[in-house]
């Protein structure tokens, strides 16, 4: 028998997904703005990447991406990777708008069509269950039951 998949999310879980979208979009945009100010980094000048860590836009971008990472991990603790990824892909549209109106980059018609197709792809998968109950952890060979979230977390010695 196929295990039942859970789909319904609580309000705070939707807020976590929204936080992922906003922090990822603004974080990436700030990183792009910062790297444009730092200039091109060649393969022979990789230490310049550490110099970029002192740029204000890069610092703000990193702070937002830390928020993104925390929200992303939280979402992955109660939803499938294949659910979280498309649900947050709407950020691409936000990035395109930020690129066009904030960074003043040119977006050709074909790029707009590409962004539309990506959004349509997200719509295809958005209305699917959030969690596959019999998924496994990398390294396992057979499906294992989900752990009890109220149990004591395992701490490595």
């Amino acid at each position, binding site marked *: 028998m196929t295990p039942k998949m859970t789909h319904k999310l609580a309000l705070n879980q939707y807020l976590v997904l929204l936080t992922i979208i906003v922090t990822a979009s603004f974080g990436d945009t700030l990183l792009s703005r910062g790297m444009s100010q730092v200039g091109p980094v060649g393969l022979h000048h990789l230490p310049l990447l550490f110099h970029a860590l002192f740029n204000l836009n890069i610092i703000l971008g990193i702070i937002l991406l830390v928020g993104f990472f925390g929200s992303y991990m939280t979402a992955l*603790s109660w939803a499938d990777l294949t659910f979280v990824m498309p649900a947050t892909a709407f950020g691409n549209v936000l990035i395109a708008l930020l690129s066009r109106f904030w960074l003043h*980059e040119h977006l050709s018609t074909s790029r707009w069509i590409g962004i539309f197709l990506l959004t349509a792809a997200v719509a295809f998968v958005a209305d699917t269950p959030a969690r596959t109950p019999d998924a496994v952890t990398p390294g396992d060979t057979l499906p294992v039951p989900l752990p009890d979230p109220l149990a004591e977390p395992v701490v*490595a010695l």
Partner: protein
Amino acid sequence: MTPITPHAATPLLTWASIAAVSVFAIAGEVLIAGAMRNIGDLDLIRARSGLRGAIRAVLASPIFLAGAFCMAFNFFAMLYTLSHVELSLAAPGIASFTYVGNAAAAKVFLRERVNGRRWLATIFVCVGVFMLAK
């Protein structure tokens, strides 16, 4: 106001950079997703053990640490890419490759149920990436 644009790169460098970022992202996200599934609902752990308990539970997972290592490489590869490629191409391109790769990796390594609708979506994503590159 003068538009801020990165220096132009060759198509080979552009797509090699995007592919490298995507590979690190896929490896990192699949490992982290597996670790978080193993750890359990972070909201419940935080409610019971506090933020410190939740952080301790996450950091105690070697699978998570391996994923975080990949994500660190992903971050510096992303910085390198953004210094050569426009954000409006790099961000959707990386996201698209990462999405397709994650769908395949989640099915193979995490045994997630990736149904027909999700595979159809990957076709849309591939065409979308082609259009972005034009």
